[in-house]
C-alpha cells in the first residue's frame, strides 16, 4: 500500500483507512468547523453593535404633524419641518397644473404622471430634499430661483425640478419624494 500524506483528500484517506490519514482529516474537519463557528459567533456578536447605530426607538417614533394651509395663496408655497426634513407645500396656479399635466412621460427621467403625485391638483406636497445628494432645492419662496422648469432648482449641483417636483435636468436620479399625508379638512393637512 502506498504511503498517504496527511494532505490526502478525505475520500482517499477514508478508502485507505490508514490511522494517521483518518485522524488528520478528522482534525481538519474539526478545525474548520470550529473556525467556522467562531467566525459565525463573531458575526452574530457584531449585530448589536452595528444595529445600535440605526435609528433609535425615539427617533423612529415618527411624529406626524398637522399643518394649517389656509394662508397659502395660489402661486405661493411654504416649508415645514417633518422628521428633521423640510417639506414643501405649494398651492399651484392653474397654469402650473396644466404645465405639470401636459408633460409627456417619455421626456421624464423618472416617469410619473402628475395625478399620481397629488391628492388635490392644487396642492403639491413634497419632501424638500434633492434626490442627488440631499441639499434643499430653491423655489418655494417666490423670490428664489425656480430653475428652467419653474419648479425647484438645487443650488448644489444644478438639478432642476418641474411644477410637479419631477426631475427634468441635472444629476438627481429621481423625482422629489411625496411624503405620506392626508387632508384633515380643506385647510389642514396631516403629514406622516
Amino acid at each position, binding site marked *: 500500500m502506498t504511503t498517504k500524506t496527511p494532505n490526502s483528500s478525505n475520500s482517499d484517506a477514508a478508502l485507505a483507512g490508514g490511522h494517521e490519514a483518518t485522524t488528520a482529516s478528522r482534525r481538519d474537519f474539526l478545525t474548520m468547523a470550529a473556525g467556522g463557528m467562531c467566525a459565525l459567533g463573531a458575526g452574530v456578536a457584531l449585530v448589536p453593535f452595528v444595529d445600535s*447605530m440605526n435609528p433609535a426607538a425615539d*427617533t423612529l417614533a415618527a411624529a406626524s404633524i398637522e399643518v394649517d394651509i389656509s394662508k397659502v395663496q395660489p402661486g405661493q408655497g411654504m416649508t415645514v419641518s417633518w*422628521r428633521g*426634513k423640510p417639506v414643501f407645500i405649494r398651492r399651484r396656479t392653474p397654469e402650473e397644473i396644466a404645465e405639470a399635466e401636459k408633460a409627456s412621460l417619455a421626456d421624464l427621467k423618472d416617469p410619473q404622471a402628475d395625478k399620481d403625485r397629488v391628492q388635490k391638483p392644487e396642492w403639491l406636497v413634497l419632501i424638500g430634499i434633492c434626490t*442627488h445628494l*440631499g441639499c434643499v432645492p430653491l423655489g418655494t419662496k417666490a423670490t428664489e430661483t425656480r430653475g428652467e422648469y419653474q419648479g425647484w432648482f*438645487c443650488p*448644489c449641483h444644478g438639478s432642476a425640478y418641474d411644477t410637479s417636483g419631477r426631475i427634468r435636468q441635472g*444629476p438627481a436620479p429621481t423625482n422629489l419624494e411625496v411624503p405620506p399625508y392626508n387632508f384633515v379638512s380643506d385647510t389642514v393637512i396631516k403629514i406622516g
Partner: protein
Amino acid sequence: MSAPNAPQKPGLIGWLDYRLPIFGFMNKELRQYPTPKNLSYAWNFGSLAGIILLIMILSGLFLAMNYTPSTDKAFDSVERIMRDVNFGWLLRYIHANGASAFFVVVYLHMARGLYYGSYKSPRELLWIIGVAILLLMMATAFMGYVLPWGQMSYWGATVITNLFSAIPVVGDDIVTWLWGGFSVDNPTLNRFFVLHYLLPFVILGVAFLHMIALHTHGSNNPTGLDAKKEDKIPFHPYYTIKDLFGLGVFLVLFALFVFYVPNYLGHPDNYTPANPLVTPAHIVPEWYFLPFYAILRAVPDKLGGVMLMFGSIALLAALPWLDRHPVRSGRYRPLFKKFFWLFVVNALALGWAGGKPAEGHYLLIGRLCTAYYFIHMLVVLPLLSKFEKPSPLPTSIAAAS
C-alpha cells in the same frame, strides 16, 4: 532590536533593555537606520507629516476638553472656545490650519513618491499603506469639519453621507444607518465626534506599519537605484538635523497662517449655525477635497460620479501595477517626467474647477481634467512602461553625484 541573547549591558537602560528592548529598537530605527546619502529636501515630508499628526492629536485633545457634541450646544461650545477658554482660539486655529497643513505635506510626500517611483518593487505595500493613511485622513478631516455644526458642517455632512445612497438597493438603508436617523442630526454628530477622536490613533498605528515597511527595504532616493552599503549614512545626526531644519521652515509658514490669516482656508458660512431647512447658495468642501469633488461632479449621473471619485483613489493604490517601467526615478525617464508635471498641473486644475459652480466652462474643464486623470493612470503609465526608453542610468549613487 538587539539580539535576544545579547548580554545585559550595564546601567539602568541596560537593565530595562535586557527585559524590554525599547531603547535598542529606538537606537536601531531612529539613530543607526542606514539612509541613502543623497536624499534631497523632497524626503522631508514623511517625518514632517508624522510631527503634524502629533500636533493634531495634542491640540485636538485639549479642544475636546471644551467641546460639546450635541446639536444644540456644539456651535456655542466652539464659540466659547474661541472667546472664553484661555488660548482656546490658538488651539482651534492650530487644529483647523493643522488639517490643511497635514494635507499639503502629505500631497507633497505623495508627489515625491510619484516622481521618484517610490511605489515600485519592493515598496508596493509601503505605498498601499500610505494610500490607506490618506483615506483615513480624509475620513477624519471630514468628520472633524462637521463638529463645529455650522452651515458648511451640516451640509457637507449631508452631501458626503448621501454619496452612499448611490449604492444600488441598500444605499438608503446604509445612509440611515450612518445617520442614526432620517437626516443628519444629533446621533450623527455624536458618532462623528467619537470617530474623529478614534481615527487619529488608528492613523498613528497604520503610520507605524508604514514605517516598519519603509525600514524593511530602506528609503528610495533621487536616483531610484538600490542604495549600496557605502551609499548609506546613519539617520542621526545627518537626517535628524535635516528634518529639524525642514520642520523649522514649516513652522514659520504654519505660524503665518495661524496668527495672520487663520480663516483664509475656511468658509464664512461655517460661522452661521447649522440650519437643516436652508442650504447655502454655494457649498464647497475644504480645499483638500476639491480635486475629488470635481471628479464627483464631472459625470451627470449619481452612481457614476461616486464610482469615479472612489475609483480615482483606488487607482492610486493600483499604481505599482499600472506603472511597470523597470526604471524607478523620473530623473532618468524623459517622457514620464513631462507627463508627471502634466499630471500635477491637471490635479491643480481639478482642484480649481472643484471650487467653482458646476456649470458652463467650469464643468467642461472639470470634465476634461477628470478624463486626463484616468487616461494618465490607465493609458499613459502602462504605455510608457512598455515603450519609454530611459536615459542612461549611473552605475551607482556615488557615480551619479
